[in-house]
């Protein structure tokens, strides 16, 4: 499957919302992930789930305050990584 940036955003958002974070209705694809409670364990579980969906492992060194600013920015990072793969 080829992943568009929008589809990746939806998938990342879905994993965060359904499986990893305990968040309310105000959590959106633009919400800050660190402020929403994403920690080191959750982010690794997220990367594993992304790998399961896309087949691409996102190098943890790419995770920064900027890439973890939101599901959208993280999806953009994953999308770039897929494009390079």
């Amino acid at each position, binding site marked *: 499957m080829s992943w568009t940036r929008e589809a990746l955003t939806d998938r990342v958002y879905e994993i965060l919302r359904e499986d*990893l974070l*305990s968040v309310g209705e105000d959590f959106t694809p633009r919400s800050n992930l660190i402020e929403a*409670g*994403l*920690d*080191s364990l959750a982010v*690794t579980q997220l990367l594993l789930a992304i790998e399961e969906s896309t087949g691409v492992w996102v190098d*943890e060194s790419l995770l920064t*305050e900027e890439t*973890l600013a939101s599901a959208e920015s993280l999806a953009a990072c994953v999308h770039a990584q897929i494009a390079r793969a």
Partner: protein
Amino acid sequence: MPKSRAPERVPLTGADCFLRAFDSEVRRTGGSSHLAQLALRLGPGLDARALAKLIAEVAEAQPILRAPIRRPYGLLPPEFRLDLAARAPMPRVEIHDLPRADGEAPIPPLFAERLNERVDGRRGELLRCDVVRYDGGAAGSDVAFTWLHMLLDGSGSERFVRWLDEVGRGARSAAELPDEAPSHSARPDARAHGEAAMRWRARMRSFSARSPRSLAGPLARTPQRLEVDLATFTREESASIAARARKLAGFLTPMLFYLAASVRAHDAVFRLRGIDPHSFVVPLPVNLRAKGAGGEIFGTRVSMLWFQVFPESCADFETLLGELKAQRLAAIKEGMVEAGTAAMDYARWLPRGAYARMARRSFGGELCSFFFAYTDECLPGMTSFLGAPIRNAFHAPSVPPSPGSVAVFSLRDGRLNLSHVRQAGVFSGFELVRFRRSLRADLLGEPE
């Protein structure tokens, strides 16, 4: 705990039982109890008597704070007996006065002494608080909360202090806890749980091919006395260390950076002694509270990720860090966080002595090489406690006679704290200097 109807009994978590086994181990070998401590260094403004009253009030409203810990029929998993709390003693609060210090006062030796006191969880002696006032409080105060470790974990203790402050300021009632889910009694799928526990056991057994040694050596029945050191780095040093941690270990996994530095510091002492450590086996606590929720206060809500590294990986800091990163990722991928929880859950059914015996048998009499924790920012966003500005805050857990050494890193307002708690005699004075030099060099990336 549900807010509407308080339960009469709260089962201990698997991790609580893990710590309860340490308590048994410490007592069996001539020590006091397995305790933990959170210390606050405050500016002026604390009314110590009001704090004493507040603690009595919250202990009345929240019986878990003095609930005897009992094992029903001597066989079933242990419980906090809330129904027996009314007969238990109230948490002790003591106020001590010292003169104003020139410059920053040293941490009161009393705080370390509190970690050396025996308490009886069966009687509900779970929590105490000590306030040291300088110049009657006009020059500030130090406050130490000390508790039987299974009552609160590190994160829970910070939530407790925050909640206490809210109750003290009238922002919350003492009867109202922020978010107490009854996860103690969660009953997972038995088969999956059993398989996970077996996976964990197999992993632990794999470590025994090169069993670890601790600096204390295998357990001995000797009088124990804990010593506590707090090293607080300057803001400039702390910023430099944090940047180095982020660069080398990753934005969200700085704990591996501090773990690598701690492994190498212990290795440096082994090398000084000319002893082969065989391997370093170290557990890393992982907070299991729901991400983004308020989070529970009471009970130990952690799993453990276990690492094993060999002395040959310790020669180079970055090589060691790479090894730890790879092990962490593999362990999470293999479900070792969940497996650790499952194994500890089963251990709730074991007599506490048996639990520790099993652990010791795996590693030739040792529990691990040393204990380690990185608790991130201590009391993030909280600038004052009951009206007094917080100048510093740090954790100091006690450590069983083997491995005899625990390093806890935390941050407070831009400064890195390292609490090094150890059994007296495990490090000689010269070894301690070597340990600190190695740690500092790795943290700052400077030559020793």
